[in-house]
Every structure is written in C-alpha cells, then in structure tokens.
C-alpha cells in the first residue's frame, strides 16, 4: 500500500505555531506527488502524521507506533532525535532530520542510519559567523557575540562549535539561555544584552521564543541588523506581528522561498485548489511552508535514487538508506523538479550524511523576507574534525556501536 | 393543646423518608414526622439513631455528604421541598443550626452573626436591631464580638451558631443538639431562649437532642428515633411519664435518680426494636 513515510509532527503544544507551516509544506508536497505523478516511481506515498506535541515521551510512542512498515522516521525535534538515534541502528530504519538533530550525524560512518541534509546546526552557525565577519573570521577578534538560545537540546546544539570558534578566532561568546518557561518573558535576558552590549546577537530560538525575543529586541532598541537567527528563527508569522520594527533582522536559511517556482504551481493545482491542504493561502509563500516542501522533496529524491538503483518501486528501509546516502541533487535535477533556487545543490555520500549545501541569509524588509546574500557556505574545514571527534565520542559512549567502513 | 392541632396544622411534614449514604449505607428506614406550626418538637434518640440525618434531609444538606433521600417526601407549608436548594429553603424561613457548631472560623463573631442575615432584604437598621437582640440573649458573644470565631471556646461557638440562625428571622429552626458541650446553666438558658423565641415570635422549632431531660421539659411533642426508625412518639408530658423513657432516656428509675456510680453494677440492654 505504498511507501510509508510517517512524520512525527507537532501541531499542538508550545511550539505548534512554528511547526504547523513546516508540517503543512511536507504534507502537501507528498500529496502533490501522489496526485500529479501517482507517487514516486509509480508507487504512492503513504504520508501519515503522528502527533508528538514536541514531547520526547510522545515522540518515542510515535516512533514505536510508526516504525513497523515505515521506510523512514522523521522525528522533528532534537530531543526526540537523540532518543531515537541509537534505536534506528537496531531497527534499521533511516532517520531523516533535515537541518536539525545532532550535527555530528554528518559522519555517516558512525551514524549509518541518520541524515541531516542539507545542513547541520554547525553549518548554520558557521555561515552566520562567515556572514557577519565578511568571510574573514579574524575580524571578529575582540568582538562580543551573544548566543541567545532555547535551554533545550536544540538550543545547545551549536555551542561546542561556537565555543571552538571563539577560542580560535578570539571573539567573546556570551551564551544566554532562555528557559522553556521564560520564552514569553525575556526581559532579564534582554537586560543582560543591554548591559553587555554585544556586537551581535545570534539566536537559536523556536516556537514562542522567537516572537518574545524580537519584541524585546525592539523594546531594548537593539540594532536589528546586528541580530541574526538560525533557520528556525525566521518565521513569517512572528515577523508579520512585528512589522516595520523588525526591519533588518536576518535569518540564515538552507531554503529560499520561490513563489513563482513550478512546484508551487503544481501544489496549487493538485493540492491547494482542491482543498486538500491544511495551509492557508498566505501561508504558501512563507519560508517555513516552502522549507517543508524542500524537506519532502529531499526525501522523495532519496526514494527515487533508491528505486533507480535497486530497480524496485516498493523499496525497503535499508534500500532507502542507500538512496539517502547517494543523493545527487544538481541544478539540473532541481530544475526538473521545478524547485530551482529553493535549496542549493548538494550530494551525499557514505561519509557525508549532511551534504553541506550551504544557504542564504534572509532579511526582513518590514513586510517580507528577502534573500540578502550570495550563496553562503559553511567552513567545512573547521567543522569536519569536530564532527568526526564528536561522532567518535558518541560511538564510544554507546559501545558496542557499529562503525561502517566508508572507503 | 398543640397536639390536637397537630395533624391539621402541620407546617413541616416528613413522609416515610429513606436515606442512603454513599449508595450503600441505609440510615433512615422510613421516618415520618409532622411538625406543627408554632410548636417545639423534639427528636430524641441515641447515637446514630439518625436524628442529624433526618434534619439534614429536611434542609437538603445531605447532598454534600454523599447522602441522598431515596424514598418518601418532605413538604413544607404543604409544598414538597426536596428539590429546593438549601438557600431557597432558608428564604422560605427554614434554617438549620448544625451539629458541631460550624462557625466560620476566620470571620469574627459579629461577622458570623451578620452572615445569618444574608438572605434578608429589610435593611440595615432591622439587622442592627436583631443583632442587639442576639447580644441580649447571649451577652458572652458581645464580649467576644471582635475575635475570630475559630478562637472562641466550644460553648461560645454554639451560641454563635444559634445567634447566627436567629439573625435570619426564621419561621422554622432546625436545631441539632443545641445543648452539646454547654455548661448546665447555659443549657437552660438556651432552651429558655428557644422557648421565648417560640412564644414571642411564634417560631417553630424542630430540635434533635440527646439531653432528653431538658428537651422534654421544653418541647410540646416528641419523637423517639432508634436505628433509623421512629419507635415512639407522643406529647412531651406523656413521654416524660413513660416508664421506658424514664429509665433509658431520663436516667430515673422508680426509686428516683440513680447515681452514675452505680451503673457498673448491672448491665442493661433493652430496645424496642433492633
């Protein structure tokens, strides 16, 4: 009955606001494929959602409930990812965490089953540093960068990388945690920012934290052009509420909205206009919705790669693993998919499960996001050794842990 | 006198009610009473006979104790009242003084009294006047009017509860064990007050009492409850003369009052029913 690709979604709970457009994008893309092409490679996609409310406990429930005939699991929270990660080795099911999860998952020799293309949090952090330093990290020396983050595995994820960079390039890193209960009342954090006068504030926020931080930033009169966020901190909904006051705020993104892309026309034709979508009209142009499309497109590409390689329509989980490991998303292929410019081309391999596609800086112009940079790339040379070391450490702590030979 | 009018002038009538607590404990097994207007009716009986339950069944306070009337009916002024809520009953003039005082601990004595006038709408002056009246009945309360009821002695709390009920200008008062824990002269005093309110204002009283002696002295009519059933009833003076009542409820035998010291020399168990 098709390719089972469950999504551990969260349309409820404190993070629902940012989750919903992403989930809608993912869902609509798969519906569109089914309606337009009859699925992938002629096999319909069985895209189902299991609600987690961003709770790790429910995440495990969903994982267990859906893993049976699934060919992939999409845990959708760094916390759930961490929990499910070691299990996927045993259950032999690929875990797809596009742009989230554990950055060292890039090292496919250790994390055989985990994929986080097209970029990891360390990639994001690296690109942000590149952007503010004008691609010369040494200029950051002596500067102060506040790292405002959700006090949760997600928010802490880039810390090792940033600390490493701070030490190497001589800037001061000031981590400022925001507890789950303080997301909406960040006055203490912003008083600290006012006191410390950092040169930049980099935000790893999610859900209600983003809006809270932006509102406080305006109140504190922190210069918006020195305020940057990770790709989950660039939600149209939050920015629209802020309007003009948010002008200048930037968010790194591995995806870029392309309202005129062919794929959007298809989505409208095959899904939205038929009333099958859960999204609203204005949501279709949102960064998060379109990123949802990209996420499903990457999964579909993995499936297709596997189908082509194995010559079967109904692929298995381990066949999909191979597919995800051998994605080669070129410009031509993107054009074929009608998604030119929505994500940068990248390819994966046994040892590289992230793809490191890089991204763009999006900037809020007062009413919508604009691409405000050339294509940016992370500093792979700095990241790779850290990934390998962290992956090795993980494998050791969780021994016995299978290591693949990628040569 | 009053007893002749009893049947045709009943203010409050309880018809064969059955009460069950917690869905399983059957407590009243068919109790019928008839309370004449302007009279003092006593409900007598030992511990656990069901006096309190009867009173609560009348004033509809059983509900919050997980009890319910499963059979029979209660009518006041000829109308059935089981469905009314307690507040509505108070407005109709039936108020209960609960067993065990139940004062509002954190309110002062005076505030306690004033809550008694909650349902009244006849203006401050009238309420002030009644407050003074209560204070003349219970001078001790006046002394302690400003202290929190929770810190007054047991007897003071009893007075407070009585006074609070009187503040509602009731037509009928259901009094549950008013004498409990009161000093002897206060017991007399309270019953004197009952009597004078009864005579002066024409207020009807239904009182549950253990102190049979005093109760029968002041009541006009009495019911004796045992094990959830009415086992005997009659005008107070007749009951007073009944030899069984004398022996078991008044503690006097044929040769006068016996000393409590002598009780251990013999054991008695006699019941009309059970």
């Amino acid at each position, binding site marked *: 009955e098709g390719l089972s690709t469950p999504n551990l979604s969260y349309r409820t709970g404190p993070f629902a606001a940012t989750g919903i457009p992403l989930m809608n994008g993912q869902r609509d893309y798969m519906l569109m494929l089914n309606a337009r092409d009859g699925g992938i490679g002629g096999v319909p996609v069985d895209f189902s959602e299991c609600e987690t409310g961003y709770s790790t406990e429910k995440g495990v429930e969903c994982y267990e409930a859906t893993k049976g005939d699934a060919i992939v699991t999409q845990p959708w929270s760094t916390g759930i990812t961490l929990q499910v990660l070691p299990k996927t080795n045993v259950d032999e099911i690929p875990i797809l965490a596009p742009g989230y999860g554990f950055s060292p998952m890039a090292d496919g020799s250790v994390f055989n089953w985990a994929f986080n293309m097209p970029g990891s949090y360390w990639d994001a952090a690296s690109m942000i540093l590149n952007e503010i330093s004008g691609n010369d990290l040494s200029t950051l020396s002596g500067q102060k960068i506040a790292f405002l983050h959700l006090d949760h595995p997600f928010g802490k994820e880039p810390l090792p990388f940033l600390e490493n960079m701070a030490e190497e390039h001589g800037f001061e890193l000031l981590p*400022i*945690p925001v507890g789950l209960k303080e997301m*909406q009342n960040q006055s203490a954090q912003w008083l600290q920012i006012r*006191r410390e006068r950092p040169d930049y504030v980099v935000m790893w926020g999610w859900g209600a934290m983003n809006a809270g931080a932006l509102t406080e930033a305006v109140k504190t009169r922190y210069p918006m052009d020195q305020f940057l966020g990770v790709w989950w901190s660039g939600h149209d909904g939050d920015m629209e509420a802020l309007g003009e006051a948010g002008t200048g705020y930037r968010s790194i993104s591995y995806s870029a909205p392309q309202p005129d892309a062919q794929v959007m026309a298809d989505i409208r034709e095959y899904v939205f206009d038929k009333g099958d979508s859960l999204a609203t009209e204005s949501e279709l142009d949102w960064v998060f919705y379109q990123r949802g499309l990209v996420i499903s497109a990457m999964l579909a590409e993995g499936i297709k790669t596997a189908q082509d390689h194995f010559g079967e329509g109904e692929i298995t989980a381990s066949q999909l693993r191979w597919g995800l490991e051998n994605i080669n998303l070129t410009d031509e292929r993107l054009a074929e998919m009608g998604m030119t410019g929505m994500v940068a081309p990248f390819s994966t391999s046994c040892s590289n499960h992230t793809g490191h596609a890089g991204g763009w800086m999006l900037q809020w112009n007062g009413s919508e996001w604009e691409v405000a940079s050339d294509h940016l790339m992370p500093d792979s040379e700095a990241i790779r050794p850290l990934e390998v070391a962290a992956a090795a450490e993980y494998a050791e702590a969780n021994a016995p842990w299978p290591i693949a030979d990628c040569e | 006198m009053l007893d002749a009018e009893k049947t045709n002038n009943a203010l409050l009538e309880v018809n064969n009610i059955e009460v069950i607590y917690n869905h399983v404990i059957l407590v009243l097994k068919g109790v019928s009473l008839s309370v004449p207007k302007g009279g003092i009716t006593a409900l007598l009986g030992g511990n656990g006979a069901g006096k309190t339950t009867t009173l609560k069944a009348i004033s509809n306070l059983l509900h919050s104790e997980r009890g319910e009337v499963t059979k029979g009916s209660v009518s006041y002024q000829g109308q059935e009242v089981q469905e009314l809520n307690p507040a509505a009953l108070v407005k109709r003039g039936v108020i209960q003084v609960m067993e065990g005082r139940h004062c509002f601990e954190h309110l002062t004595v005076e505030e306690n009294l004033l809550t008694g006038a*909650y349902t009244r709408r006849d203006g401050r002056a009238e309420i002030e006047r009644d407050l003074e009246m209560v204070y003349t009945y219970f001078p001790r309360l006046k002394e302690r009017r400003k202290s929190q009821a929770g810190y007054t002695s047991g007897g003071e709390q009893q007075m407070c509860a009585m006074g609070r009920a009187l503040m509602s200008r009731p037509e009928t008062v259901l009094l549950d064990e008013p004498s409990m824990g009161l000093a002897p002269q206060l017991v007399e005093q309270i019953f004197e007050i009952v009597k004078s309110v009864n005579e002066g204002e024409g207020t009807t009283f239904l009182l549950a009492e253990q102190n049979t002696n005093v109760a029968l002295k002041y009541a006009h009519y009495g019911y004796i409850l045992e094990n959830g059933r009415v086992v005997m009833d009659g005008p107070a003076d007749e009951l007073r003369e009944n030899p069984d009542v004398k022996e078991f409820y008044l503690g006097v035998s044929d040769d006068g009052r016996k000393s409590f010291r002598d009780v251990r020399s013999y054991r008695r168990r006699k019941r009309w029913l059970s």
Partner: protein
Amino acid sequence: MEFLKKLFVDPFVEMVSYPDFLMQVLWEGLVSGVLYSLIALGFVLIFRSSRIFNFAQGIMVVFAALTLVGFHAMGIPAWVSVIFTLGVMALLAITIERVVLRPLVGQPDIILFMATIGITLFLIGGGELIFGGETKRMITSDLGIPTGSVDFEPFGGLLILQHLDITSVAAAVVLVTGLLIFLNKTRMGRAIRALGDDHQAALSVGISLRTVWVLVWFIAGVIALMTGIFWGARAGVSFALEVIAYKALPVLMLGGLESITGAIVGGLAIGLLEKLFEIYWGQPLLGGGTETWFAFVLALIVLLFRPQGLFGEKIIERV
C-alpha cells in the same frame, strides 16, 4: 575572598555605577510583578470563596485572550469583542460551576485542585481545537491601548518606559481598588469569605454557593481577560502563555492564599526581586535562568518564618 567580593560587593558597585540601568531593571521587575499580581488575584478570589486552588487561572488567561482575538478576527469591532468575550467568560463560569464544582461540593481541597487541573487540560485541548496553535497578535491598537514608549535620561543614561506597560500598571491599580471595595464593603464580600471557611454552614445560612461561585469565577475570568490583553500585547497570544500560571504560585504563597493585599505585595516583591537577583547575581555567578526558581525559594524562605504567608489568614490550630 574573590567569590565573596563577587557576591557582596560587585553587584552593589554595579548598581551604583549604572543607576539608569538599575532603574530599568526595577521598572521591568515592577511590570512583570504587576502581571504576576493580576494572575494571583484571580487565584485569591476563587480561593477565598471556595478554598479551591484554581490551577486553571493560567489557562483562563490564554482562553480569554484567544476568544477576544478570535472575535475580532471575525470582523467584530474591538470593544464589542471585549463584551462578547466577557459573555463567554460568564458562560464558562456557569458551566464550570454546574459541571465541576456543584458535584464536588465539600470534597477535600486536593480533589478540587485536581479538578481544576482537569479543567485546564480540557481548556487547552478545546482551545487549540477551536483557535488553533498559532501565535496570534493581540489587538492592542484596536483597543486603543497606546504603543510606543517614553524615554528618560536619568544620570545621563537611558530609561525606556513602554506606554503599554504604563497602561497595564494603571489598569491593574484600578482593578485592585475595585476588588478591595467589593470584598470588604459588601454583603457579597462577607458571604465569599464565609464560604471559604465552611461550605455546609454557609449553605445552612442560605448563602447560595451557586450564585457566589459563578460570580467569583466570572470575576476571575474578567481578571484573566485583562491579564491576557496586557501579557498578550507583550508576547503574542498562544498557549505558551499558560506557563505564566506557575509564576502566580509563589506569589500566592508569599502573599498568603486568601489575601488580596498579599497577591499584590507578593507579586510586586517577586517581580522586583527576581529581576534584581537574576541580573546582578544569577547571570554573573550562576549561569542565568534563576528566574525559574528564585520566586519559589524566596517564598519558601518567607514561609519558614510565616507559615501562612505575609498576609494570609493565620492557620487556626486547636484541639
């Protein structure tokens, strides 16, 4: 030595060196304090009249705010939406009384407390079902609440006061004054207090639990709406707001569960102190985030000396 200096000297030096910053910290503390007080007030009112520790107050804030925004989104003018929302809150009060409280009259405190958590869950589920999970914008300007800010430059520094915050402080003052008059000067006020002591006795003197409870829950709903408007204007209206209910707990404990004054003093004290502590001690010495627990620990310490809170009724212990 060094540590002691950081603990006892540096914070004060900093306060004196940057008085404008100190003033900003105090103002921010004051504003959060006022909002804490408002939530705590809703609690207190219900607790006084029924000894119910109403955990649902937090979700009522969210619910009221969402309803308001929801009505407005349907194209109803802002002030009419406010009136409709009040209607919904009244309906909610009636329903809660009818469905939850009435059958539970006379049950132990903890049971009623649990029941209010049940209400909370029900409202969360129901609210998300009706309104969806997205963050909504509070209709601040439609309601005529001024936005923008005034700046002062004390001691050559900068002090920014948001108009919104000033308005919320003023509105809270009005509300509290009204409440105090209602509770202390009216017959209903006395009945509310009596009810808190003894349900049965209150019933027996003819106080109608139903009326009082519906009234009290409705007033709590009004307070919730007001809190929702001001808090929502700061951070948007979403279910994440619900966690601010936790902040009201230490406020209540500190001030005393049944005292209006306590709710206000407790709220302000906690608002101010937790901010001061976080900024001058928590962030430099403890890695920040102390606001999650500071209020609780403060309340705990105060309770050790006054087990009924600063203004609570003395617990009567007699045998």
